[in-house]
């Protein structure tokens, strides 16, 4: 193929001095050519730059399975480079692939995290403002319907009853929005698993209904308590369930189960029990070699995914003294969320507020 030259044993694009880090690969993963910037980047990540050299098997496999135009993040497994290599592949005719690469430093990743957090906070403030603005007129409707019913002796009026029902639904929605908006300074609360999944499944009911998906919840004990920022804990399971429903276009069956297990070590949660909640779906699953990568920031296989859902979920679970892992499964995905069981005894000292 034209446009490439071999120089000093390295495969260069003819326009090798342009600033973009681009490489051309054969469909077999062999390096055909690369710009000067790409060669430098490949070297930095200790990847081969000789013509016809092949990429490491793991990287090649990830690239092969990533949709065209979608970035993957690759970290060299045996070096401590404080950065990851972002690679996006594009089709180049029928025989070749164009690989656009860039180095993503820890600082850039940290900046992306902060930007994401800022966006969440801005969204929270906006939602909060809208909810506040809606609350007063809604309260006026509720109160005046109450008065109307009382003063006109229309207690049995179906019309008034319907107005009240609709207003109460709006009231609950606004309360939910305000809860959601309080993502900023975290307030730790204790909640039961039963209540937690009632809220999570309620929030996602329309999603499951629209996609024809099935959700079954079989908790070992509804009354087991966990503690932390309620919204963040909900977000862990919300993200896992959304991931499950988006794992394929057709119907997905999701099963949630739980069990308790002993926890070792002394920690701030003052409990020796963990609850393990498993979110198991029958989707396509995750290949063995990508099990850890799914928790990386910006890792996604979805065209409109942010690649942050599982990262955020794992960080939240860890922040609350637990963790999130992807367990081996014969079918689909099985994510296991571990959270400390919060003692129900009022005589125990309160746990520290979770971050």
């Amino acid at each position, binding site marked *: 193929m034209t446009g490439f030259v071999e120089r000093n044993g390295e495969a260069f694009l003819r326009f090798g001095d342009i600033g973009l880090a681009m490489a051309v690969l054969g469909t077999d993963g062999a390096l055909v050519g690369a710009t000067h910037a790409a060669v430098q980047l490949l070297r930095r990540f200790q990847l081969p730059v000789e013509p016809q050299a092949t990429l490491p098997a793991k990287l090649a496999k990830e690239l092969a399975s990533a949709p065209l135009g979608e970035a993957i993040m690759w970290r060299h497994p045996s070096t401590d480079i404080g950065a990851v290599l972002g690679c996006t592949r594009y089709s180049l005719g029928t025989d070749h692939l164009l690989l656009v690469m860039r180095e993503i430093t820890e600082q850039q990743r940290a900046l992306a995290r902060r930007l994401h957090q800022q966006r969440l906070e801005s969204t929270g403030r906006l939602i909060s403002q809208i*909810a506040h603005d809606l*609350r*007063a*007129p809604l*309260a*006026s409707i*509720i*109160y005046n319907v109450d*008065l109307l019913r009382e003063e006109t002796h229309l207690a049995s009026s179906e019309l008034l009853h319907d107005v009240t029902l609709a207003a109460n639904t709006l009231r609950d929605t606004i309360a939910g929005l*305000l809860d959601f908006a309080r993502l900023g300074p975290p307030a730790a609360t204790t909640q039961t698993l039963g209540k937690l999944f009632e809220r999570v499944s309620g929030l996602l009911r329309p999603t499951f209904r629209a996609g024809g998906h099935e959700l079954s919840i079989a908790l070992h004990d509804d009354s087991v308590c966990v503690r932390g920022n309620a919204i963040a804990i909900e977000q862990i399971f919300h993200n896992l369930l959304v991931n499950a429903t988006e794992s394929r276009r057709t119907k997905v069956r999701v099963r949630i189960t739980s069990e308790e297990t002993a926890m070792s070590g002394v920690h701030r949660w003052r409990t020796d029990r963990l609850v393990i909640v498993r979110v198991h779906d029958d989707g396509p699953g995750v290949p063995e070699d990508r099990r850890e990568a799914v928790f990386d920031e910006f890792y996604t296989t979805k065209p409109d995914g942010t690649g942050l859902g599982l990262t955020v979920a794992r960080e939240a679970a860890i922040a609350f003294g637990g963790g999130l892992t992807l367990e081996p499964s014969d079918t689909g995905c099985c994510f296991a969320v571990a959270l400390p069981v919060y003692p129900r005894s009022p005589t125990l000292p309160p746990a520290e507020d979770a971050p």
Partner: protein
Amino acid sequence: MGPSLLLVEREHALRFAIRRFFEARRVAVEVCTPADAAAFAEHRFDAVILDYCRDDDAAARALVAACRAVNPAIVVVLLADGEVADFPADAVRKKPLPLDELARVLGIGVEVGA
């Protein structure tokens, strides 16, 4: 003579509705906005309903302290958008609270004329 209630609420429509509801239950109701509440601080009330906003936290605490100084048994109900930490209230409820529930929280008979 029935119980007396101070209602501190920003919204005119809510002041109107809550006042009317409680007056129908023979409660003597004084209404004001948070900005005007200080004028009632030295009056004696059996209960106060306070539309709480974090921005007015200091003023709300001062008002409750003043009301309690006049009547230590006063019932203080906070209507807030969410959880309120360490506020010296007898009850904190999310807004909007249905009127009959509000009456129950205050311990005032729900039926008209009770």
